């Protein structure tokens, strides 16, 4: 470009092509100035759009058929009935909400309280465990689960407290959107990095952006991976009835594996055969045996899409 500008002295008039070159030069200079801003604006728009899209799909009652207000009113009635000690009425109202596919962590907690007050400790533990699947981590839930465990001595699969607490801060979709957005910001920042001169301030800034984006994407990926998905809980079940026993074969006349599986114990279903289920029981060393299916309740019998 500079060669053309410093043309030989015998040029009398500036040729048309030289005018065009000048315009192109100024365009490039202008483009260099606005390019970083444009890219950053686009990344911001993309991030905001992703969050907005996620918020749209995860908004309370986003796809429920019944009006949200009626569900809220029914929840309030159930709550009031529980406070008054009318557990049967409270349970009917709460289960009515479940039948209409109105699910929430708070409703699971309420059903857990009702079950506990009705001395159904296995059911109570199951509702509390279901409530822990959704943000945000609750100290009350953890304490209630611990209390039921101390009363029944139930057994459960080992968990990692840090992972569970961390992953429970957001839903799986939210973790995914954050991870996806961060990855796009990273890719765009890496690309735009090479548009600028070496040792320029913009390059330093983009380096910082891509490191932060990579860290955010990693953290979001871990949150997404650790968060319970339907695949992880599909085969889990909880002992909800008392006097559950595990046998070596699908018959009460066969040998005993475990004489009394405490209510609230988590098991993994391996096979179902008629009225019997072959399960894995997380005692100190994993044991397997046949349990009558009527003692078990599936961990997540609802629509798997609620776990996303």
């Amino acid at each position, binding site marked *: *470009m500079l060669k053309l500008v410093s043309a*030989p002295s015998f040029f009398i008039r500036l040729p048309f092509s030289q005018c065009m070159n000048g315009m192109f030069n100024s365009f490039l200079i202008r483009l260099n100035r606005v390019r970083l801003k444009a890219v950053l604006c686009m990344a911001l728009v*993309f991030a905001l759009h992703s969050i907005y899209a996620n918020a749209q799909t995860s908004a*309370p*009652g986003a796809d429920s058929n019944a009006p949200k207000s009626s569900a809220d009113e029914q929840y309030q009635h159930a709550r009031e009935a529980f406070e008054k*000690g009318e*557990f049967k009425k409270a349970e009917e109202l709460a289960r009515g909400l479940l039948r209409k596919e109105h699910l929430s962590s*708070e409703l699971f907690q309420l059903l857990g309280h009702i079950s506990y007050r009705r001395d159904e400790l296995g059911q109570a533990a199951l509702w509390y465990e279901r409530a822990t699947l959704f943000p945000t981590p609750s100290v009350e839930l953890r304490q209630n689960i611990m*209390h039921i465990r101390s009363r029944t001595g139930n057994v459960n699969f080992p968990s990692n407290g840090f992972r569970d607490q961390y992953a429970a801060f957001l839903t799986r979709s939210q973790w995914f959107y954050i991870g*996806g957005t961060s990855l796009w910001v990273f890719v765009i920042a890496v690309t735009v990095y090479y548009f600028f001169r070496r040792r320029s301030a913009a390059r330093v800034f983009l380096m910082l952006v891509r490191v932060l984006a990579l860290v955010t994407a990693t953290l979001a990926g871990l949150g997404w991976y650790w968060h319970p998905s339907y695949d992880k809980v599909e085969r889990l079940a909880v002992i909800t009835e008392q006097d559950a026993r595990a046998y070596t074969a699908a018959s009460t006349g066969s040998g005993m594996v475990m004489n009394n599986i405490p209510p609230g114990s988590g098991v993994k279903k391996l096979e179902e055969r008629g009225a019997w289920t072959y399960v894995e029981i997380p005692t100190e060393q994993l044991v397997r045996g046949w349990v009558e299916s009527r003692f078990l309740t599936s961990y997540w019998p609802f629509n798997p899409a609620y776990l996303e």
Partner: protein
Amino acid sequence: MTFTPFKFSCHQMAAVRGWRLLMLLFLCCGLVLPASAQISGSSGGTGVSAQVSPTQIRPGGFANFSVMVEGGDASDIQQPTLPEGVALGSPGRSTSSDMSIINGRTTRRYTQSWQITSDKPGKYIIPPQEVKVNGRTRMTEPVEFVVVERGASAAAEYSMYQPMISIEAGKLEFYVGEIVPLTASLYIHQDTLLRRVGLIELPKDSFAIQRFPLQADESVTTMGKQPYRVLTYKSTMSALKPGKYTLGPATSEIIIDMPSRGNPLPHPFLMQSDPQKVRPSSNEIDIKVVPLPEKGKPDGFNGVVGDFQMNITAEPMNVAVGEPISVEITISGTGNFDAIVEPKMTDASKWRVYPSRRFNMTSPDSYDGGTSQQIGYSQVIIPQQQVTSVPSYKFSFFSPTENKYFTLHTPPIPLEVSPGESMVSPSGEGLAGDMPKTPVLQPPAFEPTPQAKAELTDILAYVPEKSMWLAAKPQPWRSEAFILTSAIAGGVLVTLLLGKIGTVIVAANRNAADATARALWKSLGHRNQPAAQFYSTAAHYIKEKHLQGAEIAALLHTYNEANFSPEQEAGLQPVSAEERSRVLQVLRNAEAGQRA
């Protein structure tokens, strides 16, 4: 008698050969036909059908709903789709498969069956069931199923066989928290056969009711000249708050075999029976719950109601200061043991007291409200000074039989406590010298302080005011919003990359060594240029390309004339097309000559 050897004639030999050929033909047919039948059977068409047997039942009766697949590999139906009002009698599914060969044709049949029932009379249509056969989805035909109401006479006859439940409370008026025996009796007619008894369910509003056991005490009784088996289930209950309440009715889902009408055989084992699912309801009981009196309520009372005794043991009885003593306290009696917390030491000033551990000495499961129960607390205590006895422990409760509060105290247990090794006199001279009467205990260097520990006795019944309803969402990567946003971001990225590549190419083109010459050549091609400008550009091109030769010299001469001659008019005349072509040809030839 002469023996004549048997000889075949030619005709006979031919006949034998014919028979042999015929036999061989039959043998081949025998081998080939079943095989071909097998092939045709396996490759033949498949059939899917459904049926209900029997097609008519009484309310609460059972029928078998079967889905049959012939001639193919069928997928399992986990749960059939049933119309409203029809339910599964049992959650299990039974399967069977059989194979039949009819006229050499092999047919396989796979049957899946469920037990279904309904309580409401009416005509039901079981909708088509979806089943995959050899990977293809097939539907069964809808099946009709009728539940017929019993006639008046039959209903009266069946009512005789209906099971009954009654509940009975040990007391009709009792205190809040008091444990009261509760009995549920199930009466089963002797002519019926009990198949299954569900859990006895009882509304638990305002009461804490221990779950009824699955095992019952069994006896026989006669009511209205009818013999009944009586299954007695024992449990306990306690009231959560004072007031007047109605307890019941208790219900349970029961399956019994009722005798069919007109059957002459006397016993259900021998006669044809009709399985029925029934849910009898019990009587209701009016209960009055009395609040605990405020008068005389001891400090630290925490709602324990019953009649209790308390004992204590401690060992060893001979220790040094700083050495642990194990104390075991047992509480026995009847009452709400769940509410009992550990008894407290009355004077713990000279003791280091560790948290106690509770253990059951009798199983609470076998407790029926009347028999005695026993629990224990074990605790470690350490004397910090020389003491003479283990102080007494106290435990308060309300006795419903005496209608007053009691506070039990254990007797002090005499001890011999010798000075410990860490005991020194105030002067630091040791214990061997003038030992003071009340030695001072030096704080042990590494004795850990027992950490406070939570003791949960109930749930935190916190219910959030608002419920954040969950939404069923597709997996994020299937969400339209995510796909659209990713496409936009990808588009931005591609645009940036293409822009960068284009910029680099254009810049490289502009900065090439022959860029000036190419620009000049392009300018030479413009039409109607003034001669001065045209030849000036040509001269510039000649200089850039370092062209030489006679024709080039002539061109430069023309350039000088056009630009620097006094006659400026000639320089302003436009160059004709022929002249422009000639000049360009000269330049091309000179450039070619230079390259050569």
